[in-house]
């Protein structure tokens, strides 16, 4: 079994709601974290990100000045002088599937829908610490690999191309239909 030494991790928490910041701080401290920095808007969070170089960012979505989505996009600048690879956990009241997709496409590493729970937060932190994903850079995206696992049942064109071993050979729908008869 693995234990996380939280006292070696530096967190940046960004939420405009002081009550939620207090809850997050309480949870992180009781996990064992000592270094928890807090920002109440995206702009302050970005400044603190450059200054404190946190290991993990936990951010709300809806915030003043610029929101958590914009914060993620600003962190995920491959040419930036800062660290564009830090795990970003988006903790939000938004609970629609399309929001998860939008957050994922902005480079968010993990999505945690409120209401917050100690277990949910711990699990997301464990994921980013123990199972980091490679980063993908395309013309329109820079961030953690959005494919968490391979789907052997996937039917359709391979959208990532370039090398032979990357191209998935998919049976045609007709072949698949025949094989099930």
């Amino acid at each position, binding site marked *: 079994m693995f234990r996380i030494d939280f006292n070696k991790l530096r967190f940046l928490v960004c939420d405009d709601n002081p009550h939620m910041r207090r809850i997050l701080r*309480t949870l992180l401290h009781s996990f064992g974290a000592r270094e928890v920095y807090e920002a109440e808007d995206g702009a302050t969070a970005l400044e603190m990100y450059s200054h404190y170089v946190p290991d993990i960012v936990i951010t709300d979505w809806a915030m003043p000045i610029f929101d958590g989505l914009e914060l993620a996009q600003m962190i995920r600048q491959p040419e930036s002088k800062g660290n564009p690879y*830090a795990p970003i956990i988006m903790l939000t*009241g938004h*609970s*629609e599937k399309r929001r998860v997709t939008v957050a994922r496409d902005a480079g968010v590493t993990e999505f945690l829908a*409120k209401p917050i729970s100690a277990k949910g937060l711990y699990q997301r932190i464990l994921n980013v610490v123990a199972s980091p994903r490679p980063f993908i850079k395309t013309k329109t995206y820079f961030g953690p690999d959005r494919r968490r696992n391979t789907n052997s049942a996937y039917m359709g064109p391979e959208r990532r191309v*370039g*090398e032979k071993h990357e191209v998935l050979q998919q049976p045609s729908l007709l072949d698949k239909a025949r094989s099930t008869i």
Partner: protein
Amino acid sequence: MAKNSAKDIEVKAFATHHVITQPNPLRKVLRRVEEKDMDDPIGRAEQALAGLSGEFKSWMTTEVNRLSTAYVAIRNDGFSKERRDELFHAAHDIKGDAATFGFPAAAGVAESLCRIIEHAPDLEKVPAELFTHHINAILAIVHENTRLDSISVSAELSRRLRKVADDYLTDVNRDRPEHLEVILAPSIVPVE
């Protein structure tokens, strides 16, 4: 600690993308331990959260006052982008926080209110009662929540308001399939 040096980062180039891998910069915080040596960080955190619970009612009161004030401004001066955003953010915060603070029914009503604000094509045309019923319900749930017999009433109130709001949104969005799809899609938050 979180950043590897450039020489540790491996980049594989493909025609349409690059795959960037690096040693796990957070590996040093992971320690393998025997099961008997595992402590219980989640249990500890839940206890710490319970220790805050004495403040939840007062936090919730602050949140509902903010919502109430935001709606009074709209009733007095109509919708503007700023007033609409303030109402949405106040409702959205309650949607996210209320269950943690022990008011799950208020979270449900706030979610319904958020959906109205997000998906009504013209907020000026939304019947004022739809807003006032939602806001009054949240106020009532928060003020009456300590009475045990009110909990099932709160849940029922939340369900009914959601039904009324969804019927309204389905009707006014019948020609806007992209909104209709979102309105009818299930939430990703598991039902308790």
